[in-house]
């Protein structure tokens, strides 16, 4: 174990160095560029055994990852925003072929207007692709999640691709104190690759990948993907516990902060959760029973556990760093609100869409949200969902 100060990107690149994947693809896009850039140096210096495929686009990046994973080895890649959008077609194909590729998604806003800063429109747009999605509050979590993603995706009961997300710039480019595991610890934790049951390179046992499934088989194939996602939750928890044993940092489906007796609460993904914790403390100091739930696993969405964790609340605000234009709220809100539906007594629930394109979320913004929550229990919400951190 080593204490270091590094950015989120460099932390993830180091996790990749320690994992030592067999093949990686690289294509630059801010703010994830630095991951593959740093990793290229590890390749150039012989610190990893990786074959680096410096593709000509993200579409080809994911295509090469698919070919490489089907060939029979460990594959990793990183991207953001428009890069992820360009991969979109191939994301579905990676999942449909059950290839446990690990993709580091450094969250950035999608165009237009073009912007390079953080929001979650990129990974939220990929939420139905069949990938497991894990979110990180800070660089330490991004590092830890990257290592765990390998084990989760390659689990014999899953064989699913995993998208490990962190906030662009806010985390990817901020220097943080964190702990790196020792190289042999990571090597032992991830173990040898076992994610491809029928490798293409096994020329003595030829297989066909990507056959045409018509009305008579397609739905069964998708059903299998559906069932795999149902199994993923327990495996994420099991891997998170095991990781705790070697690192002292255990992981579950989500993190709760002062939720035990909370009456009003927030749900927030990624770095916004850090800001929220500060405001929760402030309100607690004033005698208000405030709390926070920070989802970690977004796909599959652990709706039963999340509903259970939120059931004691009187009022709840879900913070979304992405819009689902025309829907009844942002993507996280839609999930959470649906999860609450079966509770006998539900909290009054509202949604704030914030921080698009990297707009700062300040303490004051969240103070206002908590103040609103204290009033809506009796009076009801003035609007179900609305933008905050925005000029009116």
């Amino acid at each position, binding site marked *: 174990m080593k204490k270091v100060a590094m950015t989120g990107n460099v932390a993830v690149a180091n996790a990749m160095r320690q994992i030592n994947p*067999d*093949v990686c*693809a690289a294509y630059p896009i801010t703010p994830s560029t630095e991951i593959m850039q740093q990793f290229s140096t590890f390749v150039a210096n012989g610190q990893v*055994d*990786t*074959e680096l*495929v*410096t*593709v*000509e*686009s993200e*579409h*080809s*990046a994911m*295509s*090469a*990852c*698919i*070919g*490489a*994973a*089907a*060939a*029979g*080895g460990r*594959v990793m890649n990183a991207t953001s925003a428009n890069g992820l959008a360009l991969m979109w*077609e*191939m994301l579905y*194909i990676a999942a449909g*072929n059950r290839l446990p590729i690990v993709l580091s998604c450094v969250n950035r806003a999608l165009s237009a207007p073009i912007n390079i800063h953080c929001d979650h429109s990129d990974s939220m747009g990929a939420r139905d692709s069949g990938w497991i999605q894990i979110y990180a509050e800070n660089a330490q979590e991004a590092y830890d999640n990257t290592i765990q993603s390998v084990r989760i995706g390659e689990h014999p009961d899953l064989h699913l691709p995993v998208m490990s997300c962190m906030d662009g710039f806010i985390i990817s480019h901020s220097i943080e104190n964190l702990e790196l595991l020792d190289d042999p610890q990571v090597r032992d934790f991830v173990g040898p690759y076992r994610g491809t049951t029928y490798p*293409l*390179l*096994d*020329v003595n046992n*030829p*297989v*066909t*990948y*990507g*056959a*045409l*499934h*018509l009305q008579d*088989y397609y739905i069964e194939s998708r059903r299998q993907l559906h069932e795999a996602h149902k199994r993923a939750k327990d495996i994420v928890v099991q891997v998170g516990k095991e990781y705790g044993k070697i690192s002292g940092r255990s992981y579950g489906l989500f993190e709760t902060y002062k939720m035990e007796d909370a009456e009003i609460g927030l749900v927030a993904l990624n770095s916004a959760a850090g800001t929220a914790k500060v405001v929760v403390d402030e309100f607690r100091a004033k005698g208000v029973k405030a709390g926070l739930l920070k989802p970690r696993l977004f796909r599959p969405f652990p709706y039963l556990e999340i509903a259970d964790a939120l059931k004691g609340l009187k009022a709840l605000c879900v913070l979304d760093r992405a819009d689902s234009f025309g829907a009844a709220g942002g993507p996280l809100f839609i999930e959470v609100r649906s999860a609450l539906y079966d509770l006998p007594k539900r909290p009054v629930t509202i949604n704030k869409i914030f921080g698009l394109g990297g707009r700062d979320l300040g303490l004051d913004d969240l103070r206002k949200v908590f103040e609103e929550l204290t009033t809506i229990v009796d009076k009801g919400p003035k609007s179900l969902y609305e933008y905050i951190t925005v000029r009116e």
Partner: protein
Amino acid sequence: MAVLKLKELSKKPDLLTGGHRMCAGCGAPIVVRQVLMAIDEPVIISNATGCLEVATTIYPYTAWKLPWIHSAFENAAATISGVEAMYQSLKRQGKIPADQKIKFLAFGGDGGTYDIGLQALSGALERGHDFMYVCYDNGAYMNTGIQRSSATPFGADTTTSPAGKVLQGKAQKRKDLTKIALAHGVPFVAQASPHNWKDLMTKVQKAMSIEGPKFMNVIAPCNRGWRTQTNDAIELSRLAVNTCFWPLYEVANGVATVTYNPKKNRRPIAEWLKPQGRFKHLFKPENEWMLAKFQELVDDNWRSVVNMHNNSHPGETIDPEEGKTW
């Protein structure tokens, strides 16, 4: 290189089985079989979406007796890049035997290669993967119902370049993808035709003996799209070559060679166009200019190919006008 003897070849296992569900008389599976028959090592194929892919792998069946992957339409080259990269990585790490030889092939139609897959092809050629891309060029997006591609010949009537009252089929000439591939400076680029199996297979053998990225463009008649008979794929590919529409040549390590010169077999382009329903309107009296223009395009292309040959073989030059007796 092994000598190509029909008797020996007939004993080789068919890696694309019969009953593959391609249309009767389709040129593409003939091309695939000839390519595969010319290779002795184990082969892994990446196949772009298109007729070949769709027809041969209708789940739960597959016509392929070798490792095969289809992932999408525009990325056969990128997909095989990944497969080949994994092979290189595992070999370097000693995770697969050092003497395990595997050949990597990508197959795509002209739509998947000239158009939507051009970027991925260019990237893979530039990166220098050890693979060969084979385009089976049937001159249109056939699988989706005969839409024009940048490989569709001038004047052809397709479903998106229909011959109508005002427009007379495709207004543009073809893109010369073989020369675009060549411009990447790769060690082997060739054009071939299934009627001349010996030439095609010799080129494949040569390509397989060269390390690095290779590209082969092979004409593959489609009787549905060309509106011809199911039994004339071979005859039409022969005519395509003898009219100089589809010159047979290769550029191996910088040496350009015309591998077949029609000479006394040379025919005017009209003889190739005539049997094809897609060119019917070219034979209307008012479209005479189109026939003349088509012939001009063919002659220009033949001259440029012959030029490359003559530059490489100053002692064995070809006269581009030879055989032009009409």
